[in-house]
Each structure stands twice: as C-alpha cells, then as structure tokens.
C-alpha cells in the first residue's frame, strides 16, 4: 500500500464541510450573530416582512448596506438609497480582487468563482485570507464556499431570532437588541481600522455625519463619506509626502 492510497485526495464535500466547521468555530460568528440579531430587530421595527429580511440577507449579504437599506427605504428616495448602499459597499471591490487569485486553479472556468465572489463579506474574507493558504489549491473553492455559507446561515438564523424577539420583548429589551447593530459596527470597524487613514476617516465621519444631519443636508450620508473620507485621504497624503 502506497502513501497515496492511505491518504486519498479529500473530496469536494469534505472540504466544504471543513469550511462550515471553520465558520461556526470562528470568532466572527459571535460578532455576526450579534449584528444580525440587531438587523432582524431593525427590520421588524421598520415594518418589513420576515421573508423580505431573509431575502435581503441572502442577496445583499453586507450588514452595513442592509442597515442602510432597512432604515432608509421607508423615507428616502430610491436613488438616495441606492447611492448610500453602493457607497457603503465599495470595499468589496478590493476585497474580491485580493481574494480571487488564491482560488484560481487550472481546471474550471470563471463560473466557479461566482459563488465565492457573492459570499465575500468582511467576516468571510478575513477568515478566508487567514485559512486558505493552508489548504491545497483544489480544495480552496469548496472550503471558501463552506465558510461563506456557514456564516451566511448563522446570520439568517440570528436575524430570524432578532425579528421574532423584537416583536415579543418588552420595550427596554427591544431597545437593547436594536442597540446591538451600532455597537457591533462601532467595535468591528474600530478593530479593523489599523492605519491612520482608516482611523481618521472613521473619526471624521462620526463628527461630520451628525452635523450634516442636524442641518438637514440632502444626501447627508453620501456627503459625510465624501467630505470626511477625502479629508482623511488628504491628511494621509500630506503625511506620506512629509516622509
């Protein structure tokens, strides 16, 4: 018996299952659960149906975009909602660009990268970039799909729990549940802000956003992003140039 026979190549299904296990044992599953319990509660508060909320999680799969969508659809115009959503999701472009080369193999067309592309969200991407290098190339796509679907399933479950709880809880606990989303956003964005430009953009946004909102400036979210983000970028460039 040769070594190759005793350690047969692992099947696609096994790699997928490993991905699911990695998802449920990741620290991100806790953040995601908290975040999506909050989103479920938010969807209930704003009068959306349970099915609509689940569909939004599966189709959009980006907590900040979903928070914007749920909290603005009732009052803002469609063009304003679309702008705010698209600006909040720009990060996916560099994330997908950094990830996909790790998933490429000689066999299989670009079609097999469509699901990994859609499943890419902050949590899945961070865990994927950490765990994929330790996996043989042919296992990477199914592993990443398992990771993404595992975390997406956790999010769906959490959002249903939040939706149902928000309908039944006393006001004070419902308020605590709704408070989960801004708190999870505050902590996870702060933790991901490692460079000066990230920290500045986040800090400036926290100040500029309320100022514009208080003055009832139209498209305030977009302007917050452009003003605070550009200011952070300019300071970053000046510091780079001074080096």
């Amino acid at each position, binding site marked *: 018996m040769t070594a190759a026979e005793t350690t047969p190549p692992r099947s696609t299904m096994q790699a997928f299952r490993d991905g699911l296990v990695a998802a449920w044992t990741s620290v991100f599953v806790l*953040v995601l659960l908290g975040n999506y319990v909050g989103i479920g509660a938010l969807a209930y508060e*704003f009068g*959306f149906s349970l099915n*609509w909320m689940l569909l939004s999680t599966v189709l*959009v799969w*980006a907590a900040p*975009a979903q928070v914007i*969508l749920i909290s603005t*659809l009732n009052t803002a*115009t*469609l063009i304003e909602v679309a702008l*705010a*959503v*698209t*600006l909040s999701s*720009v*990060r*996916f*472009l*560099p*994330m*997908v*660009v*950094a990830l996909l080369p790790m998933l490429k193999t000689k066999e299989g067309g*670009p079609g097999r*990268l469509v699901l990994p*592309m859609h499943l890419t969200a902050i949590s899945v991407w961070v865990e994927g970039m950490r765990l994929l290098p330790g996996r043989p190339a042919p296992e990477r796509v199914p592993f990443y799909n398992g990771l993404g679907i595992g975390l997406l399933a956790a999010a769906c479950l959490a959002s249903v729990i939040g939706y149902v709880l928000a309908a039944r809880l006393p006001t*004070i606990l*419902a*308020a*605590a549940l*709704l*408070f*989960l989303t801004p708190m*999870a*956003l*505050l*902590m*996870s964005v702060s*933790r991901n802000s490692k460079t000066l430009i*990230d920290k500045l*953009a*986040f*800090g400036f*946004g*926290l100040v500029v*956003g*309320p100022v*514009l909102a208080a003055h009832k400036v139209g498209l305030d*979210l*977009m302007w917050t*992003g*452009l*003003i*605070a*983000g*550009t200011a*952070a*970028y300019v300071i*970053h460039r000046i510091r780079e140039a001074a080096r």
Partner: protein
Amino acid sequence: MNMAATMMEIGPIFALILVGFLPNEVWRVLGLMLVSGLDEDSQILVWVRAVATAMLAGVLAQLVLSSSGALGTVPVGVRVGAALLGFAAFLIGKRSVFLGVLTGELAIVAGALVFGT
C-alpha cells in the same frame, strides 16, 4: 422611472433588488472582472476605502443619535453614554469586540432603567 420615486411606488421586493442587491453586488462583480489588473494599494482605492469608512461612521452616528422604534424611547444622552462606555471597555479590554458590545448593552439597559424610556 422617476428619480424621486420611493419604495411605496414599486413595492418592497423590487426595491430590494433595485436599490439593495444591484448597487451592492456591482462592486463584487467589478472585482471579479478586474481581478488581475488592480493594485490593492492604488491611490484611488485608498481614497475610496476612506470614503466608505467615513460613510459607515455616518450610518453608525445616525443609528445612535436619531434612533427610531424601541431604541428611540431611550433618551439620547443614555444612548450616547452607553456607546462611549462600550467603546472605553473595548479599548481597555485589548480591543475585544465582545467586551465592548457587552458593556454597551449592559450600560443601555441600566441607563434606561435609571433614566426611564
């Protein structure tokens, strides 16, 4: 379609696809199309990421300052105070997201009990 149309005119599912799914997914698809060409450190992406982060901060501030529903019944001072306490715990606790969120949650429940909803 009228640019100033709202969800009421087109229904929630169509609105979800048109202004939720499509404007979000476009960046993932562009990433897939660009995959070989773009440098993650290119200046345009550095700027774009800063704009995205600032916008996220704006959303966060809006959720805390002008909350609606059950959270809106808690005084704004309690909401801001609880967020600051949570953030302080996050910093003290070696940037633990769990500790920060837990502290903020306990603070808002305690604050709402003391100062009323």
